[in-house]
């Protein structure tokens, strides 16, 4: 028997996920522009792995494959993971990370809609813990000149681990701007002198700051078409800005500007694409604010005082743990029961 409502809006999970994928494109385009097409290979590799893992897991769990495989959620996980790890990461790292994200952190928890942790961030965390060295070799942006690998050479490294004769890995890669900042601060340099280094641009790292802007543009598009709500990015960026701002004001020699934090690392990607994963974020408006603000604060603390250069992934995962609690605490009052009179 069929019961009302008999009509539904023509929206679907796969369409939502597709829009999010679309929104990633400006950022990816800028990524390719500044760092070369290697990232596209990573994304493709991660996508194929994700779909294959998804299909295998669905089969093993005895679930219908078609509707779930076409919901695009595995693709989104793959893209986000690929964008979070170095573009030159060897192929097996991409495969291991993606497979882990899909199989363990998504399907072992019950599949779509049931995973408490953001799968892409789990994949990232597994990789950075297991292969810390590989995770620090980022491509140098074109703008810096220096030796550049051709696309073929990049592929050669990704799949064979071989670099052209006479080149060392260090010559063609560099640490991320955040990493560099951390190392140099440890060496006793001041923020100002570090920022004068050639790898830094106006806001943050050369090239990577533009990629972050690309992600922000995609994020604004998502906000505009109401796929994501404003609460998460606004609260996250505000909390990050505020914490960084306080430290910067108190001690500008040792703490960089808040804008630097906004545009480096995975902050923009995280604000608009990672925290906003509906499955692993709170459902109430107040809960979203608390969740994202907490993530902003933690991101800053990990970046400034923790052992890892970027804190986005761990901050997200830590806040993911709190989601059920936050949801339970922030249940809004319902119609007519708000108290305070009529």
């Amino acid at each position, binding site marked *: *028997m*069929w*019961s*009302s*409502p*008999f*009509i*539904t*809006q023509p*929206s*679907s*999970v796969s*369409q*939502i996920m597709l829009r999010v994928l679309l929104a990633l494109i400006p950022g990816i385009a800028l990524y390719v522009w500044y760092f070369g097409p290697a990232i596209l290979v990573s994304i493709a590799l991660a996508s194929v792995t994700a779909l294959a893992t998804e299909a295998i897991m669905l089969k093993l769990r005895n679930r*219908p494959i078609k*509707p*779930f495989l076409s*919901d695009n*959620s595995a693709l989104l996980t793959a893209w986000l993971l690929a964008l979070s790890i170095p573009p030159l990461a060897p192929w097996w790292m991409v495969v291991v990370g993606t497979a882990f994200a899909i199989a363990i952190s998504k399907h072992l928890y*019950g*599949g*779509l*809609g*049931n995973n408490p942790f953001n799968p892409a961030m789990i994949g990232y965390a597994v990789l950075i813990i297991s292969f810390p060295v590989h995770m620090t070799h980022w491509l140098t942006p074109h703008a810096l000149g220096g030796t550049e690998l051709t696309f073929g050479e990049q592929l050669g490294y990704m799949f064979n681990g071989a670099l052209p004769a006479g080149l060392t890995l260090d010559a063609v890669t560099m640490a991320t701007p955040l990493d560099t900042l951390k190392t140099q601060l440890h060496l006793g340099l001041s923020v100002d002198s570090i920022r004068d280094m050639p790898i830094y641009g106006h806001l943050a790292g050369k090239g990577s700051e533009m990629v972050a802007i690309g992600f922000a543009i995609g994020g604004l598009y998502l906000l505009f078409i109401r796929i994501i*709500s404003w609460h998460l990015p606004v609260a996250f960026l505000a909390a990050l800005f505020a914490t960084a701002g306080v430290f910067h004001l108190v001690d500008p020699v040792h703490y960089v500007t808040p804008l630097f934090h906004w545009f480096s690392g995975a902050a923009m990607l995280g604000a608009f694409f990672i925290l906003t994963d*509906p*499955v692993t*974020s709170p*459902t*109430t408006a107040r809960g979203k604010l608390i969740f994202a603000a907490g993530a902003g604060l933690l991101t800053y603390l990990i970046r400034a005082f923790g052992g890892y250069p970027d804190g986005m992934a761990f901050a997200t995962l830590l806040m993911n743990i709190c989601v059920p609690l936050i*949801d339970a605490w922030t*249940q*809004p*009052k*319902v*119609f*007519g*029961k*708000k108290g305070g009179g*009529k």
Partner: protein
Amino acid sequence: MRPLFKFHGGVHPPTHKAESTGRPIAQAALPSKLVIPLHQHVGNRAVPVVQVGERVLKGQVIGRPEGRLSSAVHASTSGTVSAIDMQLVAHQSGLPDLCITLIPDGKDEWIAHSGVDYRQTAHTDLRHLLRQAGVVGLGGAVFPSDMKSYSHKHQIRTLVINGAECEPYITCDDMLMRERAGDILRGAEVLRELLYAEEVLIGIEDNKPEAIAAMQQAVLEDKHAHMEVIAVPTLYPGGGAKQLIRVLTGIEVAAGVRSTEMGVQCFNVATAYCVWRAIAFGEPLLSRIVTVTGNVEHAQNFEVLLGTPVDELVAQAGSKPDTERHIMGGPMMGVDLPSGSVGVTKATNCIIEASSRLFPPPPPALPCIRCTRCADVCPAELQPQDLYWFAKARDFGKAQEYHLFDCIECGACAYVCPSHIPLVQYYRFAKSEIWQREREAQAAELARERHEFRLMRIEREKQEKAERLAQKEKAALAAKASAPAPNPEPAIAAAPATADPDDTLQMRIDAAVARAKEQAAAAQPKNTDALTAEQQAEIDAIEARRAKIREMAAHAGADDEPPKSNQG
């Protein structure tokens, strides 16, 4: 301009109203039969007061209201009662309910009726008239109007007349307002009198400019004081009573609270119209306006006699052959009718002919992705995704804690859900499961009480019997004491000595019982002289009863067959 308020959420489904507003309201043809359910309203089912074969006149009461919350049911036209039995009715369950089937004689002969001047009539009498006229809320809730037009202790400030009609496809109120605005307003005036309300606010969604104009015109023409026609924004479910009250007055009426407690009462425009017909002309509720739309040649509103089979009604609008089902009500909250044979009831505001082209079956449901689109549109400000989770896990306590019963089942959440989860069905399931459990718990409680009472009663009877026996024994002992004691029984003598003092009474009772039995057994074969007259009488009575039972049992056993086969 009056400041309007907003309610949370809401959706904008395609309205599809223009299809059925192109033609005026038509009188539906007299059907070949009328299937009139006796339970068309909230409250107790009406009790049939006619016999099969009886001729009834149009407007004659055929079902009398039963109990406080109930309403009368009338013959919609003159004709003969052909059956009073269980028939399929317009209910989601597809289960039958008691209906009176009427075969019209085509004369449409009215019973004598006349109206009253409401200004000269006591309010209690007016309410009684409404009850006898079977006037109930025609917006879909079918709550008896006499029970609503009563302000009790509460001061009613505002009477809201609901002409919002927010559901897609439905236009019956729209057409009624366009064509019969005057009577609606007069009915509203009667209701205002009954409630002593200070103002009457008529809320109409701004996608019905013709209706708004007609109503405004009528307010001016009849010089209704305290009345205001207000265009409200088109937003589903803005026509829900709670939502409209909120929009017009800013008052939020929580679930489980009567709006009168907050100084507002709300009636549908069609109800106001019927109130006027009932009071001023003595016409009971015999027909209503029904929109017939969807998969039909020419969608239109009809004035339909209650009880008209849906099949016969939709044929008049040219139902297309690929129609698969009939939906009663709108596409958001309507009911999938179990059959086209069911009769139109007081709640039938619209029949949508549905084909899979117009209403494709929903795509398979995916898991909830917690996107909160449902929470964004929920007018009750609930968290539908949580309710769904609890209902799915059958965690009903938790669902109630998250305000399941505040859900008005508007369907907005399921309408927007990208995973196409039949959310409302989960809520309905959970609600009816909770009700069922409450019923069961009540039944169990009743059974427990009655069982405990019974145990207590048996215990008491036992004790009383024991006391009586003990007394008898005493008397017997006294009698024995006066006579020479032949052979004292050692068991009895020994008993008090060896027994625990607490047990003495019980032991003595047991012993007495045992001895009484022994005596009886010993006495009977030998000399009946030993029996007292009383004992003899008792024995005789017992014997007589036994014989009688045996005889009757044999007799009944022989007679057993015919009634049983009759039953079968």
